[in-house]
């Protein structure tokens, strides 16, 4: 096929010879082009303006929080990345991502509860925990910042947490979840330093008359420690005997005690021995700076049964209360709030036989723990040298020694006496604290290693209720810290 097929070429050219572009076509083309040029110029101007605005906004946003409370552009981008990671964690963790994140980050149960109780979504909750953990800030402070409407990026910048920190923490959470998925028990969550209370559930791996080890945590068993098994008292010897027959578990409520050389000991307040691990949750510690929460564990709280009981006191010790009309032991511990008409907030020592009390108890497992005791009998001031406690020995004795440790939570101290024995002294609302110049001072002014002279009465648990404590060395110490400037 070639173009030399002239017949068709001539035929076509002949027929189309009068088909020519009109004279006006060129001007139409020029007009169209001119219109297009104007249109393009306007469009380019508008586009240029938009581009300049975007560039200016981007530039400005890098240094100024043009996104309002969300912060600068880098902060917004960081927040988006962090939120994406948190969302991923929330999805992969499945059930209770906040709690699992808390466990992975070794955050206290209280902290996790604070987040869970907040109005944050699970994704935001995970992020709040991670930011608090990485910044060393209380999660409550993070939540406060969030509540003011600040974006996560801005909160992170304020708390000096980088996106890399978040990434590392998320990896930690993922790794923990993976470990858990392989059937390994997570390590006991180590409580943070924001509280003194500790609760551990787990297997009993060792017991002596003064120490018990539960879930790899060793607690000191003090004379005041309450040991319970199936609602009844049990001795350490009986526990040791049981351990010979197989595994036993326990829930230990204790208190952290920090001495002057900054070593921490765990003092057991209540030990509840159990046959099976069913009631013993995975090893778990809790640090609780507040005395308001009587229930030791969040998980227990979820299934606990709160009740209000009223009756006359039939038995009362430093750790156990019985009231008529209620057959079970009610455990008193350092977190039990005691109030008395006419005296306001007081302590366990104010509970006397025969008083009518209203007790707010929490049933956890088989244990009833008093959260609050309200003594309806009005407080009557008595002579400080008088023996008020009918359960104590009537003799008022005097001891001299050196303060070995101070336990602010239950207003008690241990004193190494001159006879070289360690005694627990309980300071009550009626105890008189004086310095060598006979000037009164507060419990908070006591300091370890102070020499003291104490008069008091011995209680049935061998602790001493202080009638009068006199320091024989200077008590002029900085309240609360003990080593402050004068």
């Amino acid at each position, binding site marked *: *096929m070639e*173009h030399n*097929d002239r017949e*068709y*070429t001539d*035929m*076509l*050219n*002949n*027929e*189309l010879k009068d*088909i*020519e*572009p*009109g004279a006006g*076509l*060129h001007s*139409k*083309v*020029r007009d*169209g*082009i001119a219109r*297009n040029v104007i249109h393009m110029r306007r469009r380019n101007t508008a586009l240029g303006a938009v581009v300049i605005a975007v560039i200016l906004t981007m530039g400005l946003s890098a240094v100024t929080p043009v996104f309002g409370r969300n912060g600068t552009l880098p902060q917004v981008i960081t927040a988006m990345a962090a939120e994406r990671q948190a969302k991923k964690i929330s999805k992969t963790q499945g059930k209770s991502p906040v709690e699992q994140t808390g466990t992975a980050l070794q955050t206290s149960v209280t902290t996790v509860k604070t987040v869970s109780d907040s109005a944050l979504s699970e994704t935001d909750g995970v992020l709040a925990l991670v930011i608090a953990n990485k910044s060393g800030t209380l999660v409550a402070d993070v939540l406060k910042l969030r509540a003011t409407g600040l974006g996560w990026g801005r909160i992170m910048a304020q708390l000096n947490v980088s996106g890399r920190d978040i990434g590392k923490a998320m990896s930690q959470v993922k790794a923990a979840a993976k470990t858990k998925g392989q059937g390994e028990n997570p390590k006991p969550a180590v409580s943070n330093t924001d509280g003194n209370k500790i609760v551990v559930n787990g297997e009993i791996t060792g017991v002596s008359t003064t120490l018990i080890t539960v879930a790899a945590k060793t607690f000191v068993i003090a004379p005041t420690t309450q040991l319970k098994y199936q609602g009844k008292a049990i001795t350490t010897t009986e526990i040791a005997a049981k351990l010979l027959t197989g595994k036993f578990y326990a829930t230990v409520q204790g208190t952290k005690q920090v001495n002057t050389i900054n070593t921490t000991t765990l003092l057991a307040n209540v030990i509840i021995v159990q046959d099976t691990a069913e009631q013993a949750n995975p090893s778990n510690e809790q640090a609780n700076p507040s005395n308001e929460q009587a229930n030791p564990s969040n998980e227990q709280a979820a299934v606990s049964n709160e009740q209000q009981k009223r009756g006359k006191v039939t038995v009362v010790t430093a750790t156990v209360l019985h009231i008529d009309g209620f057959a079970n032991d009610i455990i008193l511990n350092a977190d039990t709030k005691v109030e008395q008409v006419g005296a306001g907030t007081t302590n366990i020592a104010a509970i006397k036989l025969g008083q009518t009390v209203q007790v707010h108890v929490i049933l956890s497992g088989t244990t009833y723990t008093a959260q609050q005791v309200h003594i309806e009998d009005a407080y009557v001031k008595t002579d400080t040298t008088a023996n008020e406690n009918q359960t104590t020995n009537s003799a008022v004795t005097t001891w001299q020694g050196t303060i070995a440790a101070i336990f602010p939570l239950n207003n008690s101290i241990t004193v190494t006496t001159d006879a070289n024995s360690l005694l627990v002294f309980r300071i009550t609302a009626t105890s008189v604290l004086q310095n060598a110049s006979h000037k009164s001072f507060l419990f908070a002014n006591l300091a370890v290693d102070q020499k003291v002279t104490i008069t008091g009465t011995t209680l049935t648990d061998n602790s001493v209720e202080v009638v009068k404590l006199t320091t024989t060395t200077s008590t002029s110490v900085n309240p609360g810290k003990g080593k402050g400037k004068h």
Partner: protein
Amino acid sequence: MDDELKAVVARVHAGEEPAFDDLYHLTVRQLYKTLYTYLMTREDVEDVVQEAYLKLYQVRRKLDDTRSVPVYLRTIAINCARRKFRRIHPVRAPIEEDDVSGTETMKGVVREALQKLSPADRLVMGLFYGDQTSIQDICRMTGEKEGTVKSRLSRARERLREVIDHGT
């Protein structure tokens, strides 16, 4: 012609505004005829010509190959014409006389024969015999395979011969 076109394209490429008018005058006549064989109405052809030159104007600074400019222009124009044709005749079918009512109807046997061809066959016929365009360039412009273009030419010739010889 080629030398003249080459010089004009160089001026257009250099940004000389009047050079585009020269390019228009050098190319519009042939383009008009080609488009007419496809659309067969002056109004539609003029619309397509305007659109094609506008598009060429937008890329004028990129024109540097004189050989490709006419091919490029016709490719643009054919695509514009196809779009235009689809808008006018949504159902693809050979144009009957009734379909071009109100338009300039060809007179004579050859015009009648051309009208009875399909637009695509007409276009290939116009490009090959009218513009003396090679088969390869037609393939480039229409996006069709060489075999298809040759079939269209063969069919168009056969139909044209039939009409001329027998008047049907």
